[in-house]
């Protein structure tokens, strides 16, 4: 991790955002299974369940913000690392790898919970691929800081 752009605080921050997004997805997915026996509440919740995907994708913008600010904040570090012998390509590779590891851990965590609760697993895969896309897109932002 010594060559990593991630600090402990960055990892915690990203994990919290992934957990919030996966949790939201998990809740909206399973709202219909909750039996509250108050029709008004069920009716209210059904409105959220109906728009599950747009709501979750709308909310996932926070992860885009995270990557955006991360790459922006790290531009000096990227520049310093290149000066002392790193390459942009390696920095990008490590960035993708570490990001995907953090994402995968969170994704698996929620699917293990789903298995434990005997709920359909891998329903959140679309969100996983969406986050994967965010990671790849954010990597392209690194090229701007290649030179002094």
């Amino acid at each position, binding site marked *: 991790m*010594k*060559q990593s752009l991630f*600090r402990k605080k960055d990892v915690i921050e990203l994990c919290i955002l992934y957990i919030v997004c996966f949790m939201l997805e998990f809740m909206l997915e399973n709202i219909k299974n909750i039996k509250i026996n108050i029709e008004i509440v069920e009716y209210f919740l059904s409105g959220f369940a109906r728009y599950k995907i747009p709501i979750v994708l709308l909310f996932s913008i926070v992860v885009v913000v995270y990557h955006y600010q991360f790459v922006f904040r790290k531009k*000096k*570090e990227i*520049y*310093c*690392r*290149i*000066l*002392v*012998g*790193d*390459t*942009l*390509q*390696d920095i990008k590779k490590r960035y993708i790898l570490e990001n995907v590891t953090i994402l995968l851990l969170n994704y698996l965590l929620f699917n293990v919970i789903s298995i434990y609760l005997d709920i359909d697993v891998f329903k959140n895969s679309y969100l996983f691929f969406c986050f994967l896309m965010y990671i790849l897109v954010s990597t392209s932002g690194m090229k701007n800081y*290649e*030179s*002094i």
Partner: protein
Amino acid sequence: MKNIIEININEKVYSKKKEESLSILNKFNLEVKEGEKLSIVGESGVGKTSLLNILGLIDSDFDGTYRLFGEDTLKLNEKEKAKLRNKKIGFALQESALIDSLSIEENIKLPLMYIDSKDQSFDQKEYNEMIHTIGIESILKKKPNQCSGGQRSRAVFARSIIMKPNIILSDEPTSSLDVENKEKIMNLLFKMNEKYNTTIITVTHDLEVANQHDRVIRLERSK
């Protein structure tokens, strides 16, 4: 003494946006000998920093040839260039070139992260001596934003020499320093040159600093 830098630039096109491209360093040739102290002066926007980027193997996007230590750098891949930067080139830049989230010591030791494990040449005794000479023992555990401008400049300088490079490229290393610190940094730079025969290339606006070098070259805007 042999030449360690031989560069011929026909043209370097600098562009932020496609429609705003600027041609600099037209028909520029330079040879630098081992152990030479060279300073580059010139008005803003003439291409001093771009030249430093090219010499430091950060930028290879130019029309021309560049031989470093006799090797054609245009044939090197990114990894080979990075290795050269790590072992043979030191960058002494302005005080802001430090990673804020790392301590001063971690910043100084950053180049050590990129050396091969079998190629460990780090000597703790020598390191301690260098830190003592530069006078930054008291701030090693501090973060850059807890230090003064002079302390940060000295930390950047310490990072640039930790690998005992063959070339030190410095970009306005004294621009934000007071007279006392300016002298200190320049003395350290020249001491490196005396002790290890390190080639020094300094980009500066300060003629007093420039005149302390063996050779001064003035870059002029292309006509």
